[in-house]
Each structure stands twice: as C-alpha cells, then as structure tokens.
C-alpha cells in the first residue's frame, strides 16, 4: 500500500461518541457475581491481598477492574507525593514535595502492561532532571503509583519471569527497594494485586498464584437471554451514553456507600472462636500449603460479614468465600477431573455441614 502521507484532507468528523468518558459502570456488569463480590471484598479490606480472575475472552474481566477504579472511595493523600502517602511525614525522603496539602484523590488503579521494562515497574533515574539540571533524582515507577491502590495485570499468566520475581518480592514485603543507577531508594508499595488471564494460554507459577488472596473463574453466560442483556447494556453504553450512565452511576454510589460502611464496621466485627476452628479444620481438610489460606479465608469472611451488615462472622460467610479464598491453594492433583471448585465444595460440605 502507499503510505498515506497526509490523510487530513479526507478526515471527517466522527460521531459524538468518541470523546473521553467514564468507564463502564461496575453495577451494570451482568452476572459474574463471584468476580464482582471478590473485587468488592478487597475494597472492604485491602489486606485480603488481591484477586486473580481466570476465564474466557470477553467475559468482562478488564471491564470490571476498570469499573472498579470509578467505584472505589477516594483516598486522602498528600498532593504532590509520588507514593500517595496519607500524611506529609510518611512521604519518602527522596520525594521533592511541592505542596504538602492533603487532597482527596481517586484510589489509584494502575495498569501493568505485558512486556513492561523493569525500569518502568520499580522506577529509575529521572533522565529529564539528570540532563536538564544535572541532578541525581529518582523517577518513581508503577509500583509507587499503585501504593494504597490497585495494581492490575491483564494476561498475568504471560508476564515475563523477571517482572514476576520483582512483583513477588514487593507484594510480600509491601516495600519497593531500588538499588540501581547509583540510586539507593526505598518506598512503601502496598497494593491490591489484581490479575486476569485465560488459563488456556498458560498456567501461573504456584508462587505467584499464592500471592493472590482470592481467585475466581469466570465463564461466558450460557443462556441467550443473559447474553442479550449483556449486549443491550454494552450497546446502550456505547451509543446512548448520556441516558445510560445516570442510573448506573447512582447504583455505583450506593455500592460505594455500602463499602464505606463495611470498612467502618470491620474493626468492631466479632469473630467467634468456632469460626476460627472452622477455618483451621477446613484448611486442614483441603491440605492447603502454609497458613496464608487460613488468614485469607478469615479476612474474606470478615469482609463479607461486614459488607452484609452482620454483627459477627458466621459459618455461612465462611462457606460462601471458601471457594474463592482456597481454590487456588490446593495441591494440584492432576488426576482429579473434578477441578478445584468441586473439591472445595465437597470439603466444605464435609467439614462445615
């Protein structure tokens, strides 16, 4: 083909709908309740430690995460702080603060794209400052931006190994340590790791799998009616944005209010001893590695109880989060055809009748 050097003469205005818009609203996602619930639970208690979403293409994985950014409550942070610190004294010493005013800003949801370089992830020498002013300064990377928020990796199973190793380390310690380019810098990097992928394209390393608190499987809806509903809503979003959004934005606001209430209720929520016993015996029955399973299961159950407005955690809460909290922690038994979900359900029925 001939490269078109100047097509501007033939460029005509596109219809209205191409301006920048809010992402598709979270409440408007049809079905996929497990996925939505898991994401809401991490919003209630970020210590749950991340969500892994595995499923077919086009099942709304990315849509849900992008919608989450609009749904999450705002955080208070120092205006010019590169790591979104809540108070000026928490800002890292290398940051050059231009203003220490506390502002409200949206919870950061940072994309970590495939094939990203190490420099971009952990941060590197600020070339701009080095050249223009001859200063040795640190340019924060994606991990700094994701502090106190979410780090989203689409196609997490295709991520290169050296980036995975970096993430494992930081996700574990909550701190990013940079020793490169003559810089020696550390800053807080606590974030909820959200990964999505299609298991047919490759599996995830068990070490990374374990770092995700919850895991959910999503599948395309099977019945025509649900699928039609998906298409109708998505089409309404694309073509009649202005009439579509207000209702759903209101619903998102309600959900946000519930999340905030749940956060406030979390510290006073009661956890009976019997529930702790249930947690432990379920994990033993399943044979999950380490204690991370118990902790996550308990945290998720507490978050769910708080979200539902209960005064104490109950066995019912445990039962409903057991699948997503433990499904990816079982020792793989490749000969078991049933898959993780069915094995968890069986264990739950046996241990928590």
């Amino acid at each position, binding site marked *: 083909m001939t490269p*078109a050097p100047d097509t501007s003469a033939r460029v005509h205005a596109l219809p209205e709908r191409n301006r920048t818009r809010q992402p598709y609203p979270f409440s408007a996602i049809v079905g996929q309740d497990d996925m939505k619930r898991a994401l809401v639970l991490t919003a209630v208690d970020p210590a749950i430690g991340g969500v892994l979403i595995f499923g077919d293409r086009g099942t709304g994985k990315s849509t849900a995460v992008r919608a989450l950014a609009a749904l999450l409550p705002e955080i208070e942070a120092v205006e010019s702080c590169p790591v979104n610190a809540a108070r000026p004294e928490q800002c890292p010493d290398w940051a050059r603060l231009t203003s220490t005013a506390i502002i409200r800003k949206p919870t950061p949801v940072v994309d970590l794209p495939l094939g990203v370089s190490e420099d971009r992830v952990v941060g590197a020498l600020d070339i701009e400052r080095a050249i*223009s002013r001859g200063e040795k300064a640190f340019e924060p990377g994606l991990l700094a931006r994701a502090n106190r928020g979410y780090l989203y990796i689409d196609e997490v199973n295709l991520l290169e190994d050296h980036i995975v190793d970096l993430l494992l380390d930081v996700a574990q310690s909550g701190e990013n340590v940079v020793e490169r380019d003559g810089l020696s810098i550390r800053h807080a990097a606590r974030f909820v790791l959200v990964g999505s992928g299609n298991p047919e394209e490759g599996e995830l390393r068990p070490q990374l799998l374990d770092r995700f608190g919850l895991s959910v499987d999503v599948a395309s809806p099977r019945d025509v009616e649900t699928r039609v509903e998906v298409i109708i809503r998505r089409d309404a979003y694309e073509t009649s944005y202005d009439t579509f959004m207000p209702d759903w934005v209101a619903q998102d606001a309600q959900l946000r209010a519930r999340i905030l209430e749940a956060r406030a209720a979390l510290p006073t929520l009661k956890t009976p001893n019997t529930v702790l016993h249930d947690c432990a015996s379920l994990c033993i029955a399943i044979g999950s590695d380490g204690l991370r399973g118990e902790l996550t299961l308990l945290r998720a159950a507490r978050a769910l109880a708080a979200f539902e407005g209960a005064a104490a955690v109950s066995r019912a809460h445990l039962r409903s989060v057991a699948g997503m909290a433990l499904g990816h922690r079982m020792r793989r038994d490749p000969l078991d055809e049933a898959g993780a979900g069915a094995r968890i359900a069986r264990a739950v029925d046996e241990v928590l009748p």
Partner: protein
Amino acid sequence: MPWDRARLALAVLAVDPTGLRGLWLRARACPVRDLVTDALTALPLSLRRLHCGIGDEALFGGLDLANTLAAGRPVMRPGLLDRPAALILPMAERCPPGLAARLALALDGGRHSLVALDEAADADETLPAAMADRLGLFINLDGARLPDDPDLTTPMAEVLAARQVLSHVTLPRQGLTALVATAAELGITSPRAPLLALAAARAVAALAGRSAVSADDLTRAAELVYAHRAAPAAAEAPQPPLPDEAPPPPDIGQDEAKAEPQDGIPLEILVDAVRASLPDSLLRQLAVGRADRAAKGASGTGSVKAGNRHGRPLPSRHGKPENGARLDIVATLRAAAPWQTVRRTERPDAPEGGLLLATSDFRLRRSKEMSDRVLIFAVDASGSSAVARLAEAKGAVELLLAEAYSRRDHVALLSFRGARAELILPPTRSLVQTKMRLRGLPGGGGTPLASALELALLTARRARARGMTPTIALLTDGRGNIALDGSANRERAEGDALTLARAIRAAGTPAVVIDVSNRPQPKLAELALGMAARYVALPRAGAARIAATLGAALEA
C-alpha cells in the same frame, strides 16, 4: 463473491471504524492486498503504520533522546496512540503478546481502529487471540485474483450520509436475540462477537439508508463478523465423546430453539449464511491456528530463555562484560549520557572532552533462545485391554505436566491404534488444554508401532525446529502388527518399526521405551536398542510410577 464481501467490509469499516474496532486482513503482500489497503484512505481517521517491534515510547510518547541530548533540555515526543488513528500493523501474525495487549487496551478505549495485515504462511501462525477477538471484520485474500473493478472504495457521499444516520439506526430486540443465538449456534463464546455484529448491522443499514436494521442487514452483518469466528462444522463439539464411534452430528440448539424469534429471521438462515460465506477448509485452518497458539502457550510463559549469543535480540540489561558477553555500546552510551553533568561536577579533575563512564553504565546484549524440553509420549491404545493402560498413560502425562513449571517441560501426546498413529496433543504446557484433549481418548484395534515412531520422529523434528529439545517416551505392551502402509503384516511392520527406530537414533533424539505388558517382550528390548533408548519393563504400573520412572530416566 469474495470481492463483494471485501467491498462491503471496507464500506462498513469506513462508516464506523471505531465501533467495529478494525479489520483482520489475511493476505500476503501483493497488488491484491494493496487494493484493499489503498481503500483504507476512506476511513475518517489518520492512518498510522506500526511494526511489531514498536516500543512503548513510540506508542505512548516519551523522551526523545536524540533531540534531548542535542538540545540539552528534555524534548518529549508524542505517542502514536495519543490521537485517534487507524493503525495499520503489517506482519501481525508475528505480533508479540505484549504489543497485542497494549493494542487491545487501545481498541477498548474506543478511539482507535486497527487493521492487522496477517501474512501467515503456516497453519499455526495467526493473530494473537486478544487481538483477533476484538477486530470486527475479516477479509481473506489468499489466492484471490484482481477484481474486475479495481476500485474498492464506496463513494464518499454514501459513506458520509451513512455516518450521519448511524447513531439513529435502531435494532428490534428479536433481531438482537437472533444475533446472539446465531453466535451461540456457531460455537462463538466471546460476547464481543455479537456486539461487533450489532455495530456492523447498524453500519450496513445506514449504508442502505434505512433507519432500522432489516433481516437482510442482519444476515450480511453476521456473515461479516461471525464467519471467521465460527467453529468448523465438524469440530463443533469441543470435547469428543467417550466411545470411539464417530462424534454425533453437531446438535446444539435445543436450548436456543425457544429463543428463536417468532416473526424475525429464522436462526437457520443466519447460520447457513454465515457458514456459506467462508470455505470450511479455511475455518479449519483458523481453528488449528487458534488451538496451536493456545497449546503452545504464548511466549513469555517462561518458554523463552535469555542467552547472550544466539537468536533474536532482546533489550540489553545491566552487567559486567565478561565470560564472552557482548557489550551493547549504544545502550551503554545512552546509560552514561544523562550522567555527564553530574559526574563532571563530582570529578572536577577529570580530563576535558572525554566521556565519563562508570561500571554501572555497562549494558550487555542479550538475545533469546528457546531451550525447553518437550516430552513426546507415544501411547499404545490398541487392543481391548487398552482402556486401563491408556488411563495410566494419561495420568502420567498430567503428573509430568503438573511438575513442568519447575522444569520448564512441554508435553506432547500421540496415541496409536487401528491403522495409524495420531497426534492428540501438540507440545504444550497448559494443563487445561491437556485435560481437554485427553478426556475421552479412544482405544482398541491393531498396533501401528511404525506409524507411531514415524509421527514421534516428525513431532520431534518440528519441536527441534522451534528450538526445543525433544525426548520420546514410548509406552507399549507389544510388537507392532501394522506396517507403515497400513497393511496387517507383522513381519513388514517389525521391519518398518526397526527402520524408524534407527532413524530416531540417527536424529539424536533421546528416547525411553516403557514395556507395560505382563511379561517383558524381548522384541521390544531389541527395538529400544535400535533406538538407543532406555528400556524399562513396568508390568501393571500405575500413573505415578510411570511418571516417576520417566522423570528419573530423563534426568539420567
């Protein structure tokens, strides 16, 4: 008529380039393809050409290093994705998953449109799934001749008029139901397909000047969007049923039948139209490409090993130039450049005019080389007692694959029974794929051992061509009784098997022969000798034991 289809696809794309997300154009570079790409100037977006090696800075913008150094102050340059554009990606079949993910994100933003020029030569070359799923339209020009009328553009006035009315075109609900049901009937699971078909239907209606989508528009839109996504007619059932009879005819539709619109278009018409619009052979080829791509597990799963001498270049990394590593001079200078002012002030005694290098500046060249192992299982599925043995072999495959994370192994499986051997599972690391293909592996019939060895050798060669190191594991309980030509002649069968065994040895492919019969077979030991393979007799072994033995034999 392929050209009518191409013309319509181009017109639809010109009307609504961002709604349809783009075009998958399957053609080699040739005058025929140029016709189509020339017609793209009708798009209401500026055309930007990408290449598969494009970096983040070019895509998203960043520091312009050359100008920055020259000017002494930071000079930024804009990225390709900053402004709405129609992106043209040649050799899209070579597109790395990282770029595909970035482009997919850009397409989801709804401001861009992508034309992927797919120049695939082999069946296993195709677009990355993330990209193919998002692009609305498909034009296949393989083997197409120049059309009688070489102008493929639709008159601009028509396109402009269509663009005006596009946002007012309505689609009745039963039309939508028909689109969704058709997708289900064709085995298309991604919900993006009906959305794209909806956009196409609107554009088709707008082109015809209608304010509501008609049945005819729906049919044409379904042809445009669904045809290449459909599962090939015969392979519709994703999991073959257990018994070894022929799979039952595709028989979905009990559920969908009630969803069929009463007064709209009957589902069959839509389905048939879509089926008729692309040749089945092409569909099959696309499906094979999809499956292979999935089975291979795209690169980045750890299958690529970074070395420093062979293969395609990778970005350079920090390191010391020793042990034969090669210094990347440009990258080293680039790393040192920003520091010059700082170092000058720190070392005022340094000689004037020179470059101040530090060891931390050194960047080493790296290149990627594939060095994964692939374990090729050849499993005997002959005879009536095969069922149990086959189950053990399947178990062993899955066990080995479950350990493959740490060892970076791939697994392939071929079974032999009846007249020929058959590749059940191309080399893969995906447990999900494996389970799907292993479920319901049929058994029974003769023992075409020679054919199995032939196929194993072929698979090993292919794996080696991809840079993997193959190992063959043969699980059988007896002597071959079917010769290469399919005849039941024991003597010739044994001769053929021995010849192929020697070929495997000559190819230098390591092998293990596992004898699972109740009494060890001397003939099999002889065959193993011919192959220079380890011979292990494991009567009545379980899956775990087979896996352990194989693991040990491979480590040795």
